[in-house]
């Protein structure tokens, strides 16, 4: 075991190819986090075509590192302009922005970047510590449970939408599973939903679908919205190294808070559907509750920056756990990452622990090393990095859209995929503009094939009695509770809030 743990670290650090890939991934991840209009999910979707055909380990390291570090740079706009990059950064605004307004932007940035990096490292350690505990649990799962886990994954991730969006999330997830049935049926050899289109016999291209549902709608929405994220002058965005260093030192000064919020964040990340926002807000609340001077929060308390940042990055390590071992993404970003892993030939599930522990440890170390790299780069270049938040969204749109069409085509070299891209993009924009969650679609599409195969295997082994297996009953109970709650809360929710 120890040989695997330290052997993978040595391999990672001593292989210039891996380190070079990680450096590129870190730079892209930082850029993505800083630039308005491009989120972490979109960046993975855009990167998938480039890693297509790569070996599993370098491809997975590249994508995971890129995904893990974009949260580290995302807080810059939260602190400097009061504009959160995404939901995960919203809690940071509460104290980060007041600090910036009173001239302590550098201190807030130094504290948040260091906290974010340390959180990412502790999250990876928590994940690593969970592996021996989890191994017997994962190995107890049979095809029956894997079918039900796929359904549970969709219902859990629908929670990300929150409130009445859960119902929509489940429908979208099932729609994704439905599209996963397009193509040749593995049981009977029947071509389903393909008409005369032979290129669809292998199913809908995952890359095309992910680009269409996530990337293209975001760009259309950005074009419709228009403008730049920042209304603050370039002069106001300047920070000094002295302040940055002061902020860095705040993290060891509050070490006990950092450890607590990192562990809480990692544990929240392990629960599919709760997401980074929950981790950040929960830990912000924890910091307020445990502070001797809670009245300082909301007015520029540095602990109010440290707590949400450690938590939101620590949750990445935690959310990798259900993604890799159960095939249930712990967050919407992980849903797309899961699709990318499948494209790279990494099959999530219990065999990863038994047959591919090297890959698992390589990913854990990639999280650690990637976060260290990101923090070091950001601390050196933070003064200039803020300038990126002034980029006008309209200038990004044509480049991202052209990347999408290249990505859809390159994957299978079929021009028909461009037509599929256009059709699914219309549905994707419909989902976005009608306020339907899109992450469950990716999970449904990714897990649809696994779910169908598992269902047929379970029926062949146990018939309909597979529903009565103890673990199956537990999972069915969880699904029923989740769906029941979705329906109940949907009808109870005040109508006014839907029309707002």
């Amino acid at each position, binding site marked *: 075991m120890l040989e695997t743990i330290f052997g993978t670290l040595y391999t990672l650090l001593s292989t210039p190819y891996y380190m070079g890939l990680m450096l590129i991934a870190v730079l892209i991840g930082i850029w993505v986090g800083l630039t308005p209009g491009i989120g972490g999910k979109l960046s993975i979707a855009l990167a998938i075509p480039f890693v297509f055909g790569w070996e599993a380990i370098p491809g997975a390291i590249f994508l995971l590192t890129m995904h893990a570090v974009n949260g580290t740079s995302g807080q810059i706009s939260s602190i400097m302009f009061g504009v959160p990059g995404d939901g995960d950064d919203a809690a940071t605004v509460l104290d980060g922005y007041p600090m910036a307004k009173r001239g302590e932007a550098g201190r807030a940035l130094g504290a948040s970047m260091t906290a974010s990096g340390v959180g990412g490292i502790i999250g990876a350690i928590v994940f690593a510590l969970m592996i021996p505990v989890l191994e017997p649990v994962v190995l107890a799962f049979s095809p029956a449970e894997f079918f039900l886990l796929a359904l549970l994954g969709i219902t859990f991730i629908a929670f990300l939408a929150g409130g*009445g969006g859960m119902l929509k999330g489940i429908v979208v997830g099932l729609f994704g599973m439905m599209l996963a049935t397009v193509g040749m*049926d593995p049981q009977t050899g029947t071509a389903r939903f393909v008409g005369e289109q032979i290129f669809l016999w292998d199913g809908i291209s995952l890359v095309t679908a992910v680009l269409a549902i996530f990337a293209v709608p975001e760009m259309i929405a950005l074009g*419709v919205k228009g403008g730049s994220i920042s209304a603050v002058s370039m002069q106001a965005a300047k920070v000094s190294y002295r302040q940055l260093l002061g902020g860095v030192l705040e993290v060891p000064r509050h070490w006990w808070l950092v450890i607590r919020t990192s562990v809480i964040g990692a544990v929240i990340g392990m629960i599919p559907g709760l997401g980074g926002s929950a981790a950040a807000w929960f830990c912000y609340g924890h910091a307020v509750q445990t502070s001797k001077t809670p009245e300082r929060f909301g007015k520029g308390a540095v602990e109010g920056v440290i707590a949400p940042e450690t938590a939101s990055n620590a949750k990445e390590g935690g959310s990798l756990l259900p993604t890799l071992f159960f095939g249930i993404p712990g967050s919407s970003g992980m849903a797309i990452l899961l699709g990318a892993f499948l494209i790279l030939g990494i099959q999530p599930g219990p065999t990863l622990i038994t047959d591919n522990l090297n890959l698992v440890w390589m990913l854990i170390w990639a999280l650690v090393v990637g976060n260290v790299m990101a923090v070091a780069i950001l601390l050196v270049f933070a003064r200039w990095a803020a300038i990126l938040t002034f980029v006008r969204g309209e200038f990004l*749109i044509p480049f991202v859209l*052209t990347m999408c069409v290249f990505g859809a*085509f390159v994957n299978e070299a079929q021009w028909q995929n461009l*037509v599929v891209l256009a059709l699914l993009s219309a549905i994707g924009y419909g989902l976005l503009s009608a306020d339907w969650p899109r992450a469950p679609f990716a999970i449904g599409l990714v897990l649809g094939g696994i779910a169908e195969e598992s*269902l047929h295997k379970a029926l062949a082994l146990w018939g309909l009695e597979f529903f009565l297996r103890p673990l199956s009953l537990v999972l069915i109970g969880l699904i029923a509770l989740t769906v029941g709650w979705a329906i109940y809360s949907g009808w109870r929710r005040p109508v006014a809030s839907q029309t707002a």
Partner: protein
Amino acid sequence: MLLNRRVAFTLVMLAILVAMVGMAAQYPPDARFMPWVVGIPAIALCLLQLGRDLRAARHAAGEAQEGEGSTLRREAAMGGYFLGLVGGILLFGFLLAVPVFILVFLRHWARASWPLALGLVAAAAVVYYLVFVQGLNVALHQGFVTQYVLERSSE
């Protein structure tokens, strides 16, 4: 107005799901099993959602939708740009359609100056060529019109 954006989209989703479940009826039992296992509950939940959307639309009826017209125009324009890009690639190929699309978008939508727009187009063309044609060695789609013209000119 009952048929607002949300209701319309829920109806679209419902129509797609109903059509797929209906099509699956023609397949052998084993082949239609999964589409039905997934599709029928999805239709039921979609109907519930439609009920909720209609309820919300009834409450919102009469409320003015500020800026709806201009949003629709911008959405149509953005959709047009994207469809133009896809259509342009299908007809004229990546090498022609992509630079033209970027240039037109930057000039007319982003209001970039000619030098900036041309510079960005040139940079993008070089990067795309190096990455996709040279790096990944992909045979990019030539475009049906371009292919036809090239074939005719070589005869």
